[in-house]
């Protein structure tokens, strides 16, 4: 279930579960004329095989960059400064560090789209307006699976059928602008799945869609996951979607993972003050109208300045002066559930099973 990531106590969780992707201490910097911004500041996590990992956080916390970094597609001036991205193919062979591949080299290109594919937030702009949907899906198949155009077309129509397109032959010859947003996202998913990848990185795939379409797309992704047996890394800021889709959740703040646990624990027993605040800021049915929705005070700090100590401390409701603003918290495994990781000084004392703080109670 939960990963054994964020090492110090690794192995304690029993047998090392099979993973598809294991990211270790990944760092990405954007070096611009105004300064250096650390988009990812040493993140470590695993996506277990066949499972779905949700990556959540506010805008600018590095969720999307994480996905792009796995494929070595971080746009300039962003560069990956250190870390490893271990990929283990489904045939059981040794894990490969993808960052050792040359960025635009044949090996890296052979992994993109074939073993790991990615779909993006904006279905309106992620398909090229100049080519038919079929052409764009066929392109990936021709690259990774077969050189035969006829066969590629058959496969493309097949996959379009699978993603629930009403008339796959017609859609194959349609241009993106002739399709609705939901249809385009289906086409994107078809493109992503056309080579039956081991991992699908879905970067906010339903953010631009209305809720009905969103529900359809999520349902479709779950079905296809069952069918193909792939893993999904689901990047989103929508906690409702996380609850529906994910097995594990990693909560990110300012380029770091602050809490990581199974989806149940994140929702029913969140530990990090940031996670707790995030969950409290979701509107709920049945709550009193006059009550104000809780907000996280302050806003994400300027990316070019470095916050000392815990990056969340200026906004944290449980801020402890002298510690939080001085020392960067280590990742801790909670004694009560070893696969639950949290980076917070509140839980520093491992002997205390239940830490009584103001943030300990949760609203559910």
């Amino acid at each position, binding site marked *: 279930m939960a990963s054994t990531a964020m090492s110090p106590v690794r192995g304690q969780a029993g047998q090392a579960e099979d993973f598809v992707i294991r990211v270790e201490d990944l760092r990405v910097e954007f070096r611009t004329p105004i300064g250096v911004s650390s988009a990812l500041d040493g993140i470590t996590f695993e996506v277990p095989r066949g499972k779905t990992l949700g990556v959540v956080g506010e805008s600018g916390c590095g969720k999307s960059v994480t996905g*792009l970094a796995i*494929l070595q*597609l971080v*746009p300039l001036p962003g560069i990956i400064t250190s870390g490893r991205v271990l990929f283990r193919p489904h045939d059981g062979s040794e894990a490969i560090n993808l960052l050792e591949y040359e960025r*635009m080299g044949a090996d890296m*290109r*052979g*992994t*993109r*789209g*074939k073993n790991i*594919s*990615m779909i*993006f*937030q*904006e279905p309106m*702009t*992620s*398909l*090229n*307006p*100049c*080519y*038919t949907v079929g052409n*764009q899906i066929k*392109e*990936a198949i021709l*690259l*990774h699976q077969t050189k035969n155009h006829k066969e590629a077309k058959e496969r493309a129509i097949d996959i379009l059928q699978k993603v629930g397109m009403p008339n796959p032959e017609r859609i194959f010859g349609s*241009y993106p*602008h002739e399709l609705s947003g939901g249809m385009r996202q289906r086409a*994107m998913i078809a*493109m992503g799945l056309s080579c039956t990848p081991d991992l699908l990185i879905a970067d906010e795939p339903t953010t631009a869609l209305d809720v009905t379409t969103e529900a359809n797309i999520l349902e479709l992704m779950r079905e296809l996951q069952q069918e193909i047996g792939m893993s999904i890394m689901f990047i989103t800021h929508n906690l409702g979607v996380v609850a529906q889709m994910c097995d594990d959740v990693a909560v990110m703040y300012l380029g770091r993972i602050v809490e990581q646990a199974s989806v149940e624990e994140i929702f029913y027993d969140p530990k990090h003050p940031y996670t707790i605040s995030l969950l409290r800021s979701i509107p709920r049915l049945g709550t009193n109208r006059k009550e104000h929705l809780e907000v996280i005070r302050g806003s994400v700090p300027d990316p070019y300045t470095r916050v000392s100590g815990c990056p969340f401390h200026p906004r944290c409701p449980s801020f402890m002066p002298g510690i939080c603003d001085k020392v960067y918290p280590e990742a801790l495994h909670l004694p009560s559930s070893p696969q639950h990781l949290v980076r917070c000084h509140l839980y520093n004392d491992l002997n205390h099973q239940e830490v009584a703080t103001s943030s300990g109670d949760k609203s559910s």
Partner: protein
Amino acid sequence: MVNYVLRRLLYMVVTLFFISIIGFFIINLVPGSALDARINQLRAQGGEVSYQEIESLKARYGLNDPIPVKYWKWVSGVVHGDFGESFTYQEPVGSLIWSRIGFSVLLSSFALIFTWVVAIPVGVYSATHRYTVPDYVITLIQFIGVAVPDFLMALILLVVASKFFHTGVGGLFSQQYQNAPWSWARVGNLLSHMWIPVIVIAASATAWTTRVMRANLLDVLNQQYVQTARAKGLREAVVIWKHAVRNALHPLIMTLGSLLPSLISGEVIVSIVLNLPTTGPLYISSLINKDMYLAITFLMALSILLVVGNLLADLLLAWVDPRIRYE
């Protein structure tokens, strides 16, 4: 689509009709004409013969007719392929233009091909290597290309050609080929003379087009679908040339619309400096000398090329970008 083209053709005819009326009227507003100069010349020689000749000239060219009658006479001639007669050259306008238009089109076509063949790859390179030394060098050359006036560049190239390459300069042929019949040697001689005017005519257009290509491609490279293409595992060359460049071509195609008329009038200054037998200088002199029929014929030719060019550009745009479909 067929309906659209037919409708556009109809609009074109209407547009041209109004241009011809307005153009003809304005050209006739100017007092005097090239004919007056000749009449004065004849008067100076004196004598009855001359007087009769003047009258016959006036009658022949309908100089005393009101403008609408003149216009009607001219239009009914045009319908039969008779564009009137040039006062200054005393030759039919049609044959005057035809004898020169070949060189004009040849020169300008070469210039256009040169522009695109150079500007598109250089613009793409410049965009994909943004903020590197080669990009800065290209940018510098572009600004020079835009800033240096045509005639100056023509003069500089003339000097360079005669000093360092020892080729004959000016004109389109060396002396011995000037009036020779067509042969391979003559074609070779033509080509060896062409590079200077081609470069001069194309220089600023190339610089400008490179700039536009760079800016557009930079926009397109930020688009999500470019990232999608990379995420598929495509080679960078395919990502750029198949997915990005095609989406960056729109402004280049739109300039084609205004490019056709410049094919026959654009190289005026260069032609004068380099002494080229093209249509540009003829057009200018017809306006200066008030050579009515020659001027109006040129005006109409340019107008036709403009509207046709725009139609072609619109159709080409629809072909490149499937989102553009005319109803």
